[in-house]
């Protein structure tokens, strides 16, 4: 990004994409934060707002995709420009999914609102959401700076979220075993936790895309994973 294009409108096309991605990121962040707040406070109005915000996010993704396609057709981008545009498409798709996950959490607010669950559980979810949101915020900052080093460090931190998710999973199981009446709300909360955990994965995807945009290479090594929830309950666990 050292110098500008000879054709200045080209720069504007790329700036447009980058600006719209940042906007999408801001909205997705807010949706996730709102959805968790709505869940914890049983705030149905806020949940409704999250659900309607998702339309805006979907539309933004569509517009970014369209602009990207037109730019590719018009300018035949090469090297870093091509990676930039392909990256925009991927990041927009990840952010759109983040919005969907927020919306899904918001939809469950109604089901969970009527049950009385211990505050402790809600706090666990809040903590998980805080971490996922922090990761999302950081990855959006990295998007603005396009720093491959920072992108890599975010990628390595996803394991923290995975670990908390696994412990929430165990906790929810315990409540369900205590009292079968907890099964319905706990199942919803389990989905909510999974939604939030998935947001961390999308943030990691975005970090990997940014790394690729900046360097033209895939990040080295396996993505760290501490999500062992899929084996909870298996023999020996």
């Amino acid at each position, binding site marked *: 990004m*050292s110098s*500008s294009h*000879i054709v200045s409108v080209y720069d504007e096309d790329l700036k447009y994409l980058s600006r719209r991605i940042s906007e999408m990121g801001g909205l997705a962040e807010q949706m996730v934060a709102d959805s968790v707040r709505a869940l914890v406070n049983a705030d149905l109005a806020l949940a409704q707002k999250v659900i309607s915000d998702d339309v805006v996010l979907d539309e933004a993704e569509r517009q970014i995709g369209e602009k990207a396609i037109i730019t590719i057709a018009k300018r035949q981008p090469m*090297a870093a420009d*091509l*990676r930039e545009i392909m990256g925009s498409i991927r990041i927009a798709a990840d952010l759109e999914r983040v919005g969907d996950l927020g919306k899904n959490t918001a939809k469950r607010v109604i089901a969970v609102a009527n049950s009385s669950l211990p505050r402790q559980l809600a706090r666990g979810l809040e903590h998980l959401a805080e971490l996922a949101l922090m990761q999302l915020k950081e990855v959006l900052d990295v998007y603005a700076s396009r720093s491959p080093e920072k992108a890599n460090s975010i990628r390595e931190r996803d394991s923290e979220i995975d670990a908390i998710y696994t412990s929430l999973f165990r906790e929810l199981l315990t409540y369900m075993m205590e009292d079968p009446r907890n099964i319905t709300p706990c199942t919803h909360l389990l989905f909510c936790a999974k939604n939030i955990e998935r947001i961390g994965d999308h943030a990691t995807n975005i970090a990997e895309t940014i790394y690729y945009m900046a360097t033209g290479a895939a990040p080295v*090594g396996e993505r760290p994973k501490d999500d062992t929830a899929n084996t909870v309950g298996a023999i020996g666990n």
Partner: protein
Amino acid sequence: MNMMSEAAVEKALDQKMNSVPYKMIGKDVSVYYGEKRALFDVNLNVRENTVTALIGPSGCGKSTFLRTLNRMNDTIDNCRVTGKITLDEDDIYDPNIDVVELRARVGMVFQKPNPFPKSIYDNVTYGPKIHGLARTKAEFDQIVELSLQKAGLWNEVKDRLHEPGTGLSGGQQQRLCIARAVAVSPEVILMDEPCSALDPIATAKVEELIHELRANYTIVIVTHSMQQAARVSQRTAMFHLGNLVEENDTDKMFTNPDDQRTQDYIMGRFG
């Protein structure tokens, strides 16, 4: 997830490409036009049965380098070439080498289609006649048909072989020039912006042809179209101010080049 395996595939491809033998080797090639130095110690090797694209801004020396490969620079009075260029094992600047024979081995196609003001048939047989590659009419007929077929022109002109070559469309003329180059069974074909005077359809036909010719010939092409270089070549060399800046696999060159100057040039940025 598949990151390692993709890298492994890429490495295998690189190794495959790296194992292709060199057809021509250019070592410390410099070219002077009188006092002016146009090329600075260029070390560039051309791989066999590979399309090598030479790119770079106007005046960067890419055409100059191309012309050293069959000594076309000899035709320019004050032009001087230093360094060494070999074709297989032969030093092409050896005083004992027959330049006419060299140019039969290293043919050339120019920017503007330049058929001779003769019939299509005579255009193709011109080279083989000079080089004594055929004697009987049947032999010449065969060369004409084969060359025109290789150039993808046979079906379009087989019923009017004795009409003037200049009566063809621009794209057909260019393919006639390629047929003419192919007729003397060269080993290497040099192309100096072969499509810059052609419309997109004719360009696509020439590119398709380049793709097919690669199986039997080694091709070096100078092009101003980055997309064309990306489409037709396997290796790309970037020139700037008379220097070879970078030579790389074409796929790498256009997605993630090593040199900043290549990056700026292919992305259309100010250097």
